């Protein structure tokens, strides 16, 4: 009955893949979950583009033009979009670069950095353009659910997915989540 499975897409934008690793911490519980869900576009499947999906899980904030393109593809294809983890919700650790001008960051890394040879700021046309500031997902698209944590625990993922699989609204009670 694969046709009735809930279709999930996942991606990591300006994140560290920690949320994805934590998702996989479900370990053997993933086997039971896979009886009810199938993965579409995701680093777990290596599928490169979204088909229409039921749930999109997006890790990381927005630091470049490609992140925005991917996020818009997710929003256009996913009935329910979940911002997973601190970076997706408020920019997180990558947003610490917002304390500095973008040029300052690039010069620090590629011109003045320790051990840099042939200093130059990369400008290949294939590289996505960096945004002036790292932004949360909700600055660009409507987000349906927020799953805080750095990362959210495997139990957090299971709980929100279980609720959604049952067709319920996801509820994350007060004092049941962490931002760190």
């Amino acid at each position: 009955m694969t046709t009735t499975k809930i279709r999930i897409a996942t991606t990591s934008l300006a994140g560290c893949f920690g949320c994805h690793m934590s998702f996989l911490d479900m370990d053997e519980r993933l086997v039971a979950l896979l009886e009810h869900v199938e993965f579409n576009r995701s680093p777990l499947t290596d599928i490169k583009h979204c088909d229409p999906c039921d749930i999109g899980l997006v890790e990381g904030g927005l630091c470049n033009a490609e992140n925005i393109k991917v996020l818009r593809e997710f929003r256009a294809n996913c009935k329910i979009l979940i911002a997973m983890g601190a970076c997706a919700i408020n920019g997180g650790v990558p947003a610490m670069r917002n304390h500095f001008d973008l040029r300052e960051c690039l010069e620090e890394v590629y011109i003045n950095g320790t051990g840099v040879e042939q200093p130059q700021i990369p400008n290949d046309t294939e590289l996505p353009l960096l945004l002036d500031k790292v932004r949360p997902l909700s600055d660009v698209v409507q987000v349906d659910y927020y799953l805080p944590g750095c990362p959210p625990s495997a139990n957090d993922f299971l709980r929100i997915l279980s609720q959604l699989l049952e067709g319920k609204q996801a509820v994350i009670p007060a004092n049941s989540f962490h931002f760190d």
Partner: protein
Amino acid sequence: MQNTIIIDGQEIIFKDGQTIMDAALAAKIYIPHLCHYPGLTPHGNCKLCTVNLGGKSVSACTTPAMSGQQISNNTAELNEARTTVTQMLFIEGDHICPSCEKTGNCKLQAMAYHLGMLDEHFSPFYPRREIDASHPAILLDRSRCILCDLCVRASREIDGKNVFAIAGRGIAAHLIVNSSSGKLVDSDIDVSDLATNICPVGAILIKEQSYTIPIGKRIYDQQTIVEVGLQEAISEKTKHDHD
């Protein structure tokens, strides 16, 4: 006849001179608060303790208790307003919990947990404010300051010093250090001062201590802000030590 007020239908006794907050805490009723600390003069600036008194919104920490008051506190409407206030405090400053040494010990974070605040709703400001790392033992990161004024009052009222003040107005308001250079190193602040230790967020930190207790075993990993808030008071010993 005893002086009594009613909070969420519960009648409690108050003493003359107590505020609604004083009376509530004495009766073990929690009214959310960030800028209030029992033992310091109330300031009424964070607005988390807003309660409904006869149809009017008032700050519980600054409003005197008066016999017969009917007060609503723990209502969905007030908690929603408190969540919005907390979200605004988050986005106006730099509150990236995973990178902050105060995480787990932070009252702003614990307030968000208490109110069930999953996101910040508003677009973040990502402000750039001056960091003062001049002092060998104490760090001041203004980007995390919520202008609660607790350090200002603790320094003046308990430590017997006058290390801090709030300068500027509106969005330009910021914490300043009363020293010739404006730097902490030239002030008379000490690590043991209440002003150093009372910061509810990660704006004033004691250096080289932040990770002695690991994340996951910190104050609000073990207790809720309600439990902590009902226990807090400046001990007579602290007051006496600083006399």
